[in-house]
């Protein structure tokens, strides 16, 4: 039954896309895959390679995959050949293979998600100069690669402001994944944001050394909360799920406990749900989905920004805070918005590195 419904929905999408596709502008046939006459949906396919996290990491990779799905839906594409797809890597050695596999399947644009893939994208790009690639969180200087960077420090600055305004114990925690430049931008922005509100607040900074070890995140969070920290901002991907787990445990034991987590990358509200309450204060959004969609759109319109580096900051709405759903009162929200405006207007520049 559900299958039939799905099939119906699928054919509806297809039908709709045929109609929409007809009004689409003429695009260069890059693949020359035979069916030159009629077009179903747009003639553009896009795929991405994740790191070891996978598309259900509730964070970075998931956000990218949601971007691709949204792009596909918008343009009447389906998952799989000639539409959109992803491959997950089991180890660092798999990046090259996965990128190559997707290129061999004739995807018009292939994303490498994450700085870890920099060397692999660089290598494949020079081997396949006719194919278009894109990389998130790193710069690859090749004419056929579009690079995307985020000003994580700006979003994290707001997270820091929010945490500083909301803390009662004057102790805040930061849990990082690996100690790498990207995560340092989170840390630097966060510290700066806290300092801007109240320099006397102590921030406990801990790096777990991994993005996929929830148990490490849990023990770190446990130590922080028991030392009096009441708000933890995590920039640790899957490791951060352990931070949520610990906060939820505390909240289950004592529903009045004042413990909060600030999520990262995507809106992690659902991750923090405990019964009727929630431990998610807000999430620092890094709109990888927006970036993926934008680059795909440009490429589909034959305006692929090859060789360019696009930077998404607060002004470009590439980073920001998620809806707190009432966890942050309106008057505090208004203060945060003021800080946001200052950054977007260029009045305040947030440092990328910790001094």
């Amino acid at each position, binding site marked *: 039954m559900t299958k039939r419904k799905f099939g119906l929905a699928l054919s509806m999408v297809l039908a709709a896309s045929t109609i929409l596709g007809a009004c689409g502008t003429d695009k260069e046939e890059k693949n020359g895959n035979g069916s030159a006459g009629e077009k179903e949906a747009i003639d553009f396919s896009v795929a991405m390679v994740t790191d070891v996290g996978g598309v259900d990491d509730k964070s970075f990779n998931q956000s990218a995959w949601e971007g691709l799905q949204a792009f596909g839906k918008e343009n009447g594409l389906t998952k799989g050949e000639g539409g959109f797809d992803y491959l997950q890597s*089991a180890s660092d050695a798999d990046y090259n293979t996965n990128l190559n596999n997707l290129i061999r399947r004739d995807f018009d644009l292939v994303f490498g998600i994450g700085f870890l893939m920099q060397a692999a994208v660089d290598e494949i790009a020079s081997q396949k100069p006719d194919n278009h690639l894109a990389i998130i969180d790193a710069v690859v200087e090749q004419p056929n690669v579009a690079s995307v960077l985020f000003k994580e420090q700006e979003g994290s600055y707001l997270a820091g402001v929010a945490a500083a305004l909301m803390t009662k114990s004057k102790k805040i925690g930061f849990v990082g*994944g690996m*100690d790498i430049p990207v995560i340092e931008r989170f840390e630097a922005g966060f510290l700066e944001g806290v300092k801007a509100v109240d320099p006397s607040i102590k921030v406990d900074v801990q790096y777990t050394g991994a993005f996929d070890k929830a148990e490490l995140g849990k023990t770190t969070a446990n130590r922080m909360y028991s030392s009096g920290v009441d708000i933890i901002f995590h920039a640790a991907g899957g490791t951060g799920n352990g931070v949520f787990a610990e906060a939820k445990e505390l909240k289950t034991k004592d529903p009045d406990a004042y413990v909060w987590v600030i999520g990262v990358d995507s809106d992690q509200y659902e991750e923090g749900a405990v019964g009727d309450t929630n431990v998610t204060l807000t999430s620092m959004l890094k709109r990888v989905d927006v970036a993926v969609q934008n680059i795909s759109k440009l490429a589909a319109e034959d305006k692929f920004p090859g060789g360019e580096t696009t930077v998404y900051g607060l002004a470009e709405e590439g980073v920001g805070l998620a809806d707190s759903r009432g966890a942050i009162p309106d008057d505090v929200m208004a203060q945060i918005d003021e800080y946001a405006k200052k950054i977007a207007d260029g009045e305040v520049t947030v440092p990328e590195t910790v001094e």
Partner: protein
Amino acid sequence: MSNRLVNILVPVISVILGLIVGAIVMLVSGYDPVAGYAALWNGIFGDVYTIGETIRQITPYILAGLAVAFAFRTGLFNIGVEGQLIVGWFAAAYVGVAFDFPKYIHLPLALIAAAGAGALWGFIPGLLKARFKVHEVIVTIMMNYIALHTTNALIKTFSDGGDNTGPINPSASLRSEFLENMTDFSRLHYGILIALAMVFVMWLILEKTTRGFELKAVGLNHNASEYSGMNVNKNIILAMVISGAFAGLGGAMEALGTFEYASVKGGFTGIGFDGIAVALLGANTPLGVIFGAALFGSLKYGALNMPNEAGIPTEIVSIVIAIIIFFVASGYVIRLFVERFSKKKEAK
């Protein structure tokens, strides 16, 4: 039943059994096992590119397997191959980046550095075992963590806070344009020749030298060896050093061939731990390690194509691959039983 028949039948049956159970897993989870296995096959032997990549994947497995097997033959459980491989990886990358010599000096130097680093990492647990009877399993496991985080810190210092040593100089690289062109830009490199040479070296040491005989004797019964005048402690240390050197070379394969750099790692590579299974599958013999590594490497690499071509999720793929390896390993157990059984009969 003739011995030869058993030898051929056992592995064939166990592989078929593994494939059947794997197929059931795929069927139950709603995926097409035929498409899945076709994708696995194509992922390994599909074209020159995948064949090249499969061989590349096998290369470090051979060396990791040799490292474990060599220690096993001397009665030592070297669980620290992972750590020895990581320090070897870093040492090779460091020499590759920091120096600039002609190829015939640079490449051997990088390889020696990797082997030396691995040997040092094996020497410490060997010494502790020989001198203070500290169990090598505990020490080697802990040395893995020390290796991981020390190299991470070194890479950071080395690259001024970055996460990568940067690419090694071409003069230290194992890669060759010839092999790459032949295999449509796969990362196949000359490391496979080194790995095979090491297989020969291990065979030579164990079977053709007095020292090898002593090492094996210590492994079989160290009391008897001591009684017959062998220096057990020295042999334990030596076995760990050689084992570590093999593992270090395995790291060099990654540093000088596959990646051409060393980067900060969030966790273990897993190659060293898989090396334990490779060695056991190969019955701790040099030739057996080649087969174990070939099985492990090709399944690991071919598995990547299953989500790609047949749309099977990675989780299911991992289960299927684990089942196949599990059955192959139990096939070895079955054979062991059969052999023991027939030996007992002969004795009577």
